[in-house]
């Protein structure tokens, strides 16, 4: 059984490799992996919702824009994402509701400042219920 996500480490990089049996699941697990890099993801409650719509050039571009959106909500609005529900997910369109809560210094531990999501060795592939996504972030 593959883990929903694992963290990849190189001297100057930090990456997330997510697995899933569908495109939705691999996008969700990538989001969970990403939040585990920023904050202790398990302690985030789902008390607020954010509705987002993203368009992209292709599937890989959509993955970068997806995690960039989650990063923006954290860095600019201090919103921590706990889970996600997709309404639509194609290679170029994503509509989703993010569940989470505002950052609370008394309960949440912030782990790393992520600068951005990169295209370095980016991969989002899947077939027959076996999906994998690999994304490196700049820290």
């Amino acid at each position: 059984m593959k883990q929903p996500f694992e963290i990849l480490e190189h001297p100057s990089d930090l990456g997330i490799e997510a697995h899933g049996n569908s495109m939705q699941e691999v996008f969700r697990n990538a989001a969970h992996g990403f939040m585990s890099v920023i904050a202790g993801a398990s302690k985030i409650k789902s008390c607020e919702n954010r509705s987002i719509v993203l368009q992209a050039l292709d599937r890989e571009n959509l993955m970068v824009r997806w995690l960039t959106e989650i990063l923006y909500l954290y860095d600019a609005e201090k919103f921590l994402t706990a889970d996600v529900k997709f309404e639509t997910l194609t290679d170029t369109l994503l509509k989703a509701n993010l569940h989470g809560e505002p950052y609370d210094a008394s309960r949440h531990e912030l782990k790393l400042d992520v600068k951005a999501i990169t295209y370095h060795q980016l991969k989002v592939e899947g077939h027959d219920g076996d999906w994998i996504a690999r994304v490196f972030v700049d820290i």
Partner: protein
Amino acid sequence: MPITQLDEYRYLIPKSFRDGMNVEGLIYASKELIGAIERDETLKQVANVATLPGLVGRSLAMPDAHQGYGFAIGGVAAADLEKGVVSAGGVGFDINCGVRLLTSNYSLEEVKPIIDSLLNQMFGDIPCGTGKSGILKISFEQLDKVLLDGAHWAVENGYGTLDDLEHIEENGRMVNADPNELSKRAKQRGRDQLGTLGSGNHFVEIQYITEVFDEEAAKVFGLRLNQIVVMIHSGSRGLGHQVCTDYLEVMQEAMPKYNIKVVDRQLACVPIQSKEGQSYLKAMAAAANFAFANRQMMSHWTRKVFERVIGSGSLRLMYDVAHNIAKEEEHRINGRNVKVLVHRKGATRAFPKHHRDVPRDYFEIGQPVLIPGSMGTCSYVLVGTERAMSETFGSTCHGAGRAMSRHAAKKNISAEQLIHQLKERGIHIRGASKSGLTEEKPEAYKDVSAVVDVVHHAGIARKVAKMVPIGVMKG
């Protein structure tokens, strides 16, 4: 085709290294450092950069080069201003991440007994660490002024003196900045973060000068043995990161219009003279100004801390340099003067004496180059040279470069052990995060002295002085 060694410190990547290279690649390294460079994707990335349209000279990598995103960290590439391209990835996410050095009138012996008081006060007065907001709350209108005027805005608002501005690259203000070219998101991400150090490898260090290599240059820069100096390393925070993120998307979408294809998406680029290219350069300049203002504010608070704890004396801004930036400059190539856009991605401008952009008081010596080491090791002041001007578009190295992953760095040592080890060596530390401290332990980085020796011997900068920290504040 493998790389070829040209001399003791230069390695050539021939055009046959990969398809599509428009220019050759050139790596500055010693026999020891080239080994590390060959172990990751640095060579491939330097060769990939060489495929960009309109490059002039060579695609360069400094001895601290290591694998980055699209461009290698430690990379320098110049594009013809009329026919070349600009790449947001060629500057990187932390636009105008840079370093400044403040010199003091104090000696090591005077400051050593009160180092803990200084660090405690600094830690209280300068916001640092992951997710930390700034003390100052500014409106979007005020933020636009910061983006336009950089360190000038800071000085006008009481953070420092007019003399400081003469000792900052670009005098602390890139004049082509246009706040209207930034997204609302970039401003939203950065508004809260003005006047914050950040985390990762950013730091404020209280250091002392342990060695002077060039007495004449050191005298002109106001440096002497045993003198206490303060080094500040920080950048444009979330605002700069978002500008790069935004324009990577803009450039990717615009590339088909200009019939540009890149071998790595992170190298997305557009013609310099295109609408998108000009927009990026104006937004990048605004983000660079944010970083200049940011370092200016932290310098002001550092000065206040010294005044409060020691009671007298002043800290003078010796110089402030950018490590991640793209600049329009004139360089002499094959016997003629050419206007180019120089991308410095983890590299430092190193202009020689008599260059018009060197501050008046350093005009007869050259521009100071500031090289921070890793936490608890040493840092250097170098000076720019003619050879840098003729070989590297007036550029040199920028630091040590990571040698170990953060995860590996955390193994086998606790924050308490690390703090104790450094204290035994006379280095006191305050860190916002315990895991952040161990991730930045000295062994996680390459040896900065080996890097500096290469640029010194290759002649693309000259050693002036070496500093060692006695107090470190990490984000």
